[in-house]
C-alpha cells in the first residue's frame, strides 16, 4: 500500500459502520461466532465494518477473542 492509499483508506468511511455503541453491545455475540468459526461478518456486516475502522473497538475485539480462545 503506498502513502496516498493509506491516507485514502483512513479517510474512506463505510456506510454500513454501526458505530461504537452498537458494536460493543453485541461484541460478546460477535466474538463467540468468530471463535466458533462462524461467519460473524456475514451475520453482522455493520459490526465488521466498524471493527475495521475503529481502533479502540478493534482492540476490545482482539482482547475478548484472545480471552475466550486463550490464544
Amino acid at each position, binding site marked *: 500500500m503506498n*502513502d496516498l492509499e*493509506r491516507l485514502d*483508506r483512513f*479517510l*474512506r*468511511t463505510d456506510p454500513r*459502520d454501526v458505530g461504537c455503541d452498537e458494536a460493543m453491545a453485541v461484541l*460478546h455475540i460477535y466474538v*463467540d461466532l468468530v471463535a466458533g468459526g462462524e461467519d460473524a461478518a456475514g451475520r453482522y456486516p455493520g459490526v465488521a465494518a466498524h471493527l475495521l475502522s475503529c481502533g479502540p473497538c478493534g482492540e476490545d475485539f482482539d482482547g475478548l477473542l484472545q*480471552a475466550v480462545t486463550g490464544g
Partner: protein
Amino acid sequence: MTAEDLDEESAAWLYRLGDGEGERQAAERELHARLVRIALAEVRRRSASTPVTGRELDDIAHQAADDAMLAILAKLGSFRGESRFITWAYRFVILEISSKLGRHYWRNPPVALDAGQWERLPDRFGIDPVRHAESAGILAEVRRVVEEELTAHQRRVFTAIVVDGIPLDALAAQLGLQRGAIYKVIFDARRKIRRALVANGHLEETGLGEQR
C-alpha cells in the same frame, strides 16, 4: 431464556451464581480469579500502546476485575444467553480496561491536549520520510480543510486523535464524552475531508474498490 437453552458451562455458571448457599461464594471467587487473570493478560497485551506502565498497569487490571465483577453480578438477570456466559462476562473486564487506560493516560501524558503537532502528520499516516515532499501538497490540503471547513469541535477532536495521536478513549475521558460520540465526530470529519480532497482533485471518487 431457560436453562435448557444454554450450553452446559453457561447454565452451570448461572446456577452456581444464583445459588443462595455456599456454592455462590465459591462461584464468585472462581469468576473473580478468572477476571483478574484475563485483566492482567489484557493490560500486558496493551502495554506497548499506552504510557501507563509497571505497577500502575497491574493496579488497573485488579480494579477492572473488581468493577467488572460488580457489574456482572448486578446485571446477571440481563444475560440472555446470546453468547456463552463467560464471553459475556469477560466483555465487562475488557471494556473496563479500555475505560481505565483512557483515564490513566492523563496522569503522565506524552502529549498535551491541543498540542497540534501538525509536523508529525506524515508519520501518523506512515509516510516514508523520503517521500514527505511528495505528500506535502495533499497533507497541506488536509490541514486547510481541518482548519477552514470543520466545526470547532470536529477540529479539536480530529487534531487530538489524528494529528497528536491521543488515544480515543483518553480523549473521551478528558472531554467527558462516550467513545461512540468521539468516533462519530472523527467519522464525520473523515468524510468531510475526503469529499474536499476529491473535489480538489487530490483523490479519486472511487479507486480503492470495495472497502473491507
